[in-house]
């Protein structure tokens, strides 16, 4: 179904009109320090572009995603932690901007679900196994 995702992306494309301005300084250029660049890249992959159809800012062509990449790289270069940048963005755009839903009352069921599924599954599977004779 990937092709439909591509189709949807393309449908959304006109929504991000272009300014014809050059991209922000660090939108498409890496940081000099590979460790910091890796840190920035890891963070960018978990931040949602706010004008695209479900893409992280690390793989979006939208200008705004470029501006967000620039912001992330600038702040990482200045020594800010990934978590603090994420928090800063969440304070502005809400949980929507993070692909990693922070644990809260609303997201608790989501994070508990995998464990619950495993437990229920194991309990169900038990029925298929022979009881080991106690002798």
């Amino acid at each position, binding site marked *: 179904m990937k092709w439909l995702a591509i189709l949807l992306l393309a449908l959304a494309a006109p929504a991000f009109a272009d300014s014809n301005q050059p991209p922000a300084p660090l939108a498409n250029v890496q940081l000099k320090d590979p460790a910091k660049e890796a840190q920035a890249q890891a963070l960018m992959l978990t931040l949602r572009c706010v004008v695209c159809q*479900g893409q992280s800012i690390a793989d979006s062509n939208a200008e705004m995603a470029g501006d967000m990449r620039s912001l992330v790289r600038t702040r990482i270069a200045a020594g800010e932690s990934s978590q603090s940048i994420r928090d800063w963005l969440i304070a502005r755009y809400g949980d929507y901007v993070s692909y990693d839903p922070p644990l809260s009352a609303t997201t608790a069921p989501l994070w508990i679900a995998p464990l619950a599924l495993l437990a229920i599954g194991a309990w169900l599977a038990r029925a298929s196994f022979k009881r080991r004779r106690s002798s």
Partner: protein
Amino acid sequence: MLAEAGLAALWFAAALALLQLVLAGLGVWRSAKPALAHDVSTAEIMAAVRPVAVVQGALALAAMLLLIWVFARSDMSVLLVAQNSHSDKPMLYKVAGAWGNHEGSMLLWVTILGVAGAAVALLERSLDRRTLIATLGAQAAIALGFYAFLLFSSNPFARLNPAPADGNGLNPLLQDPGLAFHPPTLYIGYVGISIAFSFAVGAMITRDVGPAFARAMRPWVLGAWIFLTLGITAGSYWAYYELGWGGWWFWDPVENASLMPWLAATALLHSVSVLATRDGLRAWTLMLAVVAFSMSMLGTFLVRSGILTSVHAFAVDPTRGSFILALLAIYIGGALLLFALRVGTVKQGNTFDFVSREGALIANNLLLTVILGIVLIGTLYPIVAAGFGTQLSVGAPFFDKAAGPVALALVAVMAAGPMLRWRRDTAEAVLKRMTLPVAVTGIVLILVAMLGHVAVLPLLGLALAAGLAVASVAPLWMRNLRRTPLFTYGMVLAHLGIAVSLAGMACDTAFTQATLVAARVGVAQRVGPFTVTLDGIKPVIGPNWSALEARLSVRRGETGSVFYLRPQSRFFANPVTVTSESAIATRWDGQLYTVLGEPDGTGRWQLRLWWKPFVTLIWFGGALVALGGALSLLGRLLRARQGKLREGSA
């Protein structure tokens, strides 16, 4: 005329589906009554079902071919063609464009459904006769719903009067050979699973669930699963080279929609094996067949309803969405209701020892189903959260954290499973047989960990992939290779494919090197072992696009010979779109992936360069899995034929 003929074919096919449903229902009902069971007309009614199913499938196929014909001729008096095609398109995309839109892809869906039903009617010989008729009835019921959907709300043959001079064109992102291959493949997989569903419904109606039923169902599940595997693999590669950022899986709802049926079908494939060989997991197998098709339908629905895509809303069509939702509710709700009513009367199958092949297969089913549950919940959770008034995104970090460990546990079970004996085994013996794979896992773990910068998930992924690769060929160890049945080779190859694919994913995550620069002509850039120089940019003209093309001269190391890559930035006029066409150099140990971006206004061009070591293993592994499935299918069919021949001669 062609369009009208296509519409007529659709109407006739729908009428035949109704007839097929009525005949099958009547036949099964009559044969269940002792007084009528041996009546001649009961036999006649049941005998009529198969030919009807065949003709219905043929008519659906005819409608699809007529739609393709209309697209190929660029007949702009047909609304769908005018909206989605353009006479300047290359022929390949005219033809593929027939399913590059909502109506056409739904027609393809129902065509495959009809053809699959016809195939069952023609080819299935081992299933109990009453169960087969009930199965064909279930298949007709599904088809009927989708014919209604097409005829009442998505007619692909609607005319446009007056006809425009030319059409709107096909979305340029879809103008790729991928469109010709990926959707039909995935659809055959999606819809092929409907056969498993119909089998399960048929078996629930006739209460005939046992090893014979499982043996009859297995090739059909296997067939659908092969196509699902191919479809997902192809889709991943298509997205990888088309979207231009080097990603191959985004945990996008639409991708998840294709992954979920695959997970369910994989679980089904293994539980069918347990049912076929050891007469266990009866209710569970029926359940999985229903779940697998539910996921196919859910995928079809999610993609079309638009309820899960975000930000800027695009055309959400509530009529169509609710129509598919209603079909989904009727079929899945109905099947699960039948399951609840009937499964109590299905005899409990055998139970097993925990340490045994069966035990490992049950663990496999458990883990696959848990992953399926995680993907399903993660995909739909944003809707739930919206109910609480929260806008939420669930993406890669969640799926990696939640499903990643379960998937790695599954890999460990996969490695151990084929080394276990059926019925009963001991932990000590298994551990002894597992020495080599465990040792390899440990060694790779230590070696990769010594590199220092690899994250936990890819590190474990690589180590387990190495262990799994060794373990998966173990069933061939010390065996007479010529007497080993084909389906054992199939299993070995499929498991090996998973190991290969996993290794590719881990390598890409751990070792990819990126160089993102604003490049000046003539200035060399380094990425991984390559030196890349932008030689220049020139315009090129294609059949229905124009492009700016960069020439990159690339040299590997200091002494390698120079080769050229030509990434493009393409401009399409119908409709107006810009796409970036990546240029990829494939080497035995990975791919160099290059993309041309925008100029920065000072004579520099944005270049995105990635060196992705062993990334190709991801799709090579996927192909191996599918090939393994094909071998296994072939092996099963040959074995079944030999069985028949033996019966005949006895």
